[in-house]
Structures are given as structure tokens and as C-alpha cells.
């Protein structure tokens, strides 16, 4: 069992909701990322999703776009991101780290090169926003051969048949996109999320489902998490990275994550 799958199975066994937190690597500068990752864990994050910046983040809202632009402005590359995760791993061997980005950056490094380097750096899996399972064959094979998970996304528009197909192709967890839209929007409808996930749950086996997009605080996290194995929080944390002075970032992130953790732990 991979570190990611093991972590989620352990949480489920203890009846604890998973909290996955997203920040963009290299945002606002290269030195911010590793302390920020530790700060997320200190606040109660179970999984870290680390955004790989891309020039054309077509599924992201203004917050994550801005984070990506800040990271690219200081020259962050995928090699740099791997180095940041390796540095994080030196002090944290347990928290799963999943890279999230767009395909071209991984393609450019080469799937086999990337997977080898990712395994060495202590990365546990990837989420590729613009890679539906039909197109994922080569990348998935390379990921599998290095015991890395391929987390796939499902959306409200995904048909039931396709939902089951994607669940069969995914590993680690299934990422349910809570609404039709881009990251960080205000369209979250916890009831609709709940109805859909309840309808789909029987076909999913043991695969955990985490819900992301539009979850910004304890209340929205708790409202959604009661229907899922956990939640993903991103844009509000990226805003903190961009708006707060460098030295204050870790304390602010920890406080922000702790609020959400506290709300989840009431479930």
C-alpha cells in the first residue's frame, strides 16, 4: 500500500475526515514552500497537494492563477519542486505529498524521468488537471512502475457510467470537483455534492473520495466532508501565501488549517 493509500485507510479506520491542503510550489518565493508545508501539517493537514506552476492554468480561478504567476516569476521549475519535496521529506517522512499541475510540464521532463525523480524525492502521486483517464495510459504506466498514485478527478457533469470507469482507473483517492467551474469560486452546494456522492458510493469499493473546489473555511469543509472521506482546501491558502509577509506565512497557514481541522473533527 502506498503512503497515500495507507494514510487514507488509517484515517478512515479512525473515523477521522481527511484534510488535504493545496499551495503552489515556489509561491511567493522558493524559500517559502518547505516551511509552509510543515505549517500545514502543524495545523492538521493529512495530505499536502503541491501545485506545480504552469503558464496556462486553464481550470484555475484567479487565486491559483496568481500563485502560479508568482512562482513562475521567480523561475520555479519542476526540478525545483522536486527539490522542495525532498527537503520537506528530510523532516517529515509520513505526510503524503501529491503534485498537482498541468500535463505539459510533466511531459516535458519525460514520464519515466519524472517518476524516477519523484519517487526519490518522496512524492506520493500526481493530479493532472487536464489529463482524463483516456489519455493517461503512458503516464499511468510510468507512475505505477514507481509505486506512485494517479489521483483522478470526477465532476458533477461526469455520467454515472463514466464515474465508475474513472474510479476504476484512479488510485490513492478520487477527487470530486464540487461544482461546474474553476477553483476558488463561490458555487459550492454541499447538498448537491452529498446527493451525488451518496448515489455513487456503492460503485467505488474502498477508494476514498475527497471533495475540492470552493471549500474555504471550517463551515464549508464540514458541510461537504459529512458526505465524503475528506476535503481539499486550496485557493484560500494560496491567497495567504500571496497576501501575507514571508515570515508570517507559516503561523497564518497553521491557524487557517487548524480552524478547518477543528470543524472537521466535530463530525
Amino acid at each position: 500500500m502506498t503512503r497515500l493509500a495507507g494514510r487514507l485507510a488509517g484515517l478512515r479506520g479512525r473515523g477521522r475526515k481527511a484534510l488535504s491542503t493545496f499551495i503552489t510550489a515556489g509561491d511567493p518565493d522558493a524559500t517559502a514552500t518547505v516551511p509552509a508545508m510543515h505549517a500545514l501539517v502543524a495545523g492538521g493537514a493529512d495530505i499536502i497537494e503541491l501545485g506545480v506552476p504552469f503558464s496556462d492554468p486553464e481550470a484555475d480561478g484567479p487565486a491559483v492563477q496568481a500563485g502560479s504567476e508568482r512562482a513562475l516569476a521567480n523561475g520555479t521549475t519542476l526540478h525545483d519542486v522536486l527539490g522542495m519535496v525532498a527537503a520537506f521529506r528530510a523532516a517529515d517522512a509520513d505526510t503524503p505529498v501529491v503534485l498537482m499541475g498541468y500535463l505539459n510540464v510533466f511531459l516535458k521532463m519525460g514520464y519515466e524521468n519524472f517518476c524516477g525523480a519523484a519517487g526519490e524525492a518522496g512524492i506520493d502521486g500526481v493530479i493532472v488537471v487536464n489529463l482524463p483517464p483516456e489519455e493517461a495510459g503512458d503516464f499511468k504506466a510510468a507512475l505505477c512502475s514507481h509505486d506512485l498514485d494517479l489521483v483522478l478527478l470526477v465532476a458533477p457533469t461526469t455520467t454515472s457510467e463514466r464515474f465508475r470507469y474513472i474510479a476504476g482507473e484512479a488510485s490513492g483517492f478520487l477527487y470530486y470537483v464540487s461544482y461546474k467551474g474553476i477553483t476558488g469560486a463561490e458555487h459550492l452546494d454541499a447538498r448537491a455534492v452529498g446527493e451525488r456522492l451518496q448515489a455513487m458510493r456503492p460503485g467505488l469499493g474502498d477508494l476514498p473520495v475527497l471533495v475540492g473546489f470552493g471549500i474555504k473555511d471550517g463551515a464549508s469543509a464540514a458541510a461537504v466532508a459529512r458526505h465524503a472521506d475528506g476535503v481539499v482546501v486550496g485557493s484560500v491558502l494560496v491567497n495567504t501565501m500571496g497576501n501575507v509577509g514571508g515570515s508570517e506565512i507559516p503561523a497564518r497557514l497553521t491557524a487557517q488549517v487548524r480552524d478547518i481541522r477543528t470543524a472537521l473533527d466535530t463530525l
Partner: protein
Amino acid sequence: MPDVNRPPYHAPDERGRFGDFGGRFVAETLMHALDELTRLYETVSADPGFQATLEAELKSFVGRPTPLYRADRLTAHAGGARIYLKREDLNHTGAHKINNTVGQAMLAERMGKTRIIAETGAGQHGVATATVAARLGLQCQVYMGEEDIARQRVNVYRMKLLGADVIPVSSGSKTLKDAMNEAMRDWVTHVDDTHYIIGSVAGPHPYPMLVRDFQSVIGKETKAQCIEAEGRLPDLLVACVGGGSNAMGLFHPFVDDDAVDMVGVEAGGEGLDQGRHAAPLNAGTPGVLHGSRTYVMDDTDGQIVATHSVSAGLDYPGVGPEHAYWKDMGRARYVSVTDTEALAAFRILTREEGIMPALESSHAVAWALAEAARRPDSDLVVINLSGRGDKDIDTVAAIDRIEVGG
């Protein structure tokens, strides 16, 4: 002559692949809409009623067929092969773009979508989209980079007059690629009531296929017109390539005619060796951008790089996947000409024939003039004159340091 044992060209496959290119690299939220569009398109492709309506629209609203014009003075100027111009500039709204928007608007109507969005670079596709939206009474929003808004202000005003909202895009390089990102973000959010009219043979399957098919009227007419005028097929087809819709529209009906050479002309900008250009087929590598695998201009980390061309419509770091396929299998050749060469061709065609070409089309004219000079006068060359140049007079005047109307 074609190899009689070779099956006719058929692409894409059911996954939307042109060889290794194309496909569907999009956020999951859009997959259902793309499936729905693919199914609908399959239905209407086989529906004589739809095709008859489309043909009638192209005739009465767009003004087709467009002439295949024998450019005698241009031929004399080049001093070689006989040059014909396929006059897509004479279409309603002044470019080939409307062939596609008329067809896609009919698809939108069939799907019951009440709102249309589009991206635009030079503004020609935006105008063509706003035009069909006005005609059908559909809501229309057009995404356009701030840099393009500045250099194509006539078209911006045309879109507004037509009732469309032009939404400035200030992210990234503020040009066509960023407008396309923003249109994708809009579509993912409003996918239930909105149809996204992509303007080129780019994007996720089925767009490269259906835009190609709607634009193929250019090549079909050219074939018949050339046979009527000359009793035979042309020797060479030349068209500019940004995303590549006018080129694919001209080329595709000739794909199995092996004796017909095809050359796509990319924007060389300040020159390929200078780095500032928009010629992914000449200087890019295979990658994934805007929903398909194709040649892209990116750096060693896979970040898409800023492009440059004097023509907004060619200022794009990707290209339609079918062109990528044709480049690799050698069915078409892809070259580039610089801003300076395109501007010179703009002036030559304007003065020699009284036809002012779009700066995009001027790239094709520039390369074809040089090539015609290298060919015997028995050869026939067809240039796709994809659009008219009225929209570009501000740009040309600025280069001449002239204030229009000043």
C-alpha cells in the same frame, strides 16, 4: 497519381487522434459536453437536412461561393507560376472565420444552448461569432487579450455594435492563448447553457475535426473552380497557419491528391533565430496545450512561451493537431516568413491587384510570391486569401508612422 491500393485518408480516429496528435486533454467537467458535441456532430454530418440548411446559409448569408481569382498582375510581378487567389476575404465579415461560426451556431441551436462564447486574436473570429449570435438572437461573449484589443480596435468596436460583450483578458501574455484559457474557464463554469465556438482547428476533440469540416468548403470550391478554369488541379496550395483553420480548410479536400503540394506559412515574427516568433511547427516541440497534443512553443520546463507576430491572428504558441500530423508524415510542408516579408507582400498585393489582404494572409502571399518565381509558368499556385486587410490599417500605419485620419 494516387496509389490505388491506399485507403482514402481518414482521421481522426474515434478518440480524436491524428496519429500521435490531437486527443482530449481537458478538465473532467468538460468531457461530457465534448461527448455530447461529438455525438451531435456525428448525427448532423449524416443528416442531409442539416447539410442543406448549412449550404443555404453559406450561400445567402455568407455570400459563397467565393471566387477563385486569377491574379495576372501578381503573376507577372512574381515572374513564374500562375497565381490564383481564393477570395475568402470576400465572405461576409471579411474572412474565412464565418464558415465555421455559421456551422457551429447551428450546432448550438440544435443543442438548445442560449449563450455563445469565443476567443479571438485578430478579432475576425470574434466578429464572425458576434455576427451569427446577432442573427440567431443568442447571447455572446468574446474573450480577447488586452494587447490584441489595442491593436485591433476596429474589430472590437464591430463586435460591440453586433451586441457582443468583449471581455478583456489581462493574464499571461494578454493575447490569443490567454483569451482561450479564459474562454475555457467560462465554459467549464457555464457548460449547461453555453456553447464554446472555438475558432481554429485546435482544442480538444471534436473541435479540430468539426472546424476542419466546416472550413473544407474552401478547398471543395477551389477544386471545382480550378478544374473549371484550368481543366486540372493546382500544383501548389499556400495558406497561412496560426491555429491553421484556413489552411486546413483549403488543404483537406486535396489530401488524397498526391500531386498537389501544400505549404503552410507560419509567422516568423522577427526571424526564427531571433526567438520572437509564432512558428511552433518550425521551431516548437510536441506538447499539450488547450486540449490537444500538438506542436507547441515552450521552454525546457514545459512552460508555454510568449510569441510574437505582427499579425494578431497568427500570434499563438500552438497549432491544430492535424497540421502536426501532416508535418510529421510529410503530407504538407510548413515554412515561415517574417513580419517584414509579410508587410512587403501586403503592399505588393494591394498595389498590384487592388486587393488589401489581412496581415495573416499576407504571410501566405509573401511565401507564394517567392515560390512562384522559382516555378515554371505552366504551374498553378493557389493562395488562400483568408481575410481582408481593413482591420490592419492601424498596424500598418503605425509602422509607416502615419496617424490614420490625422
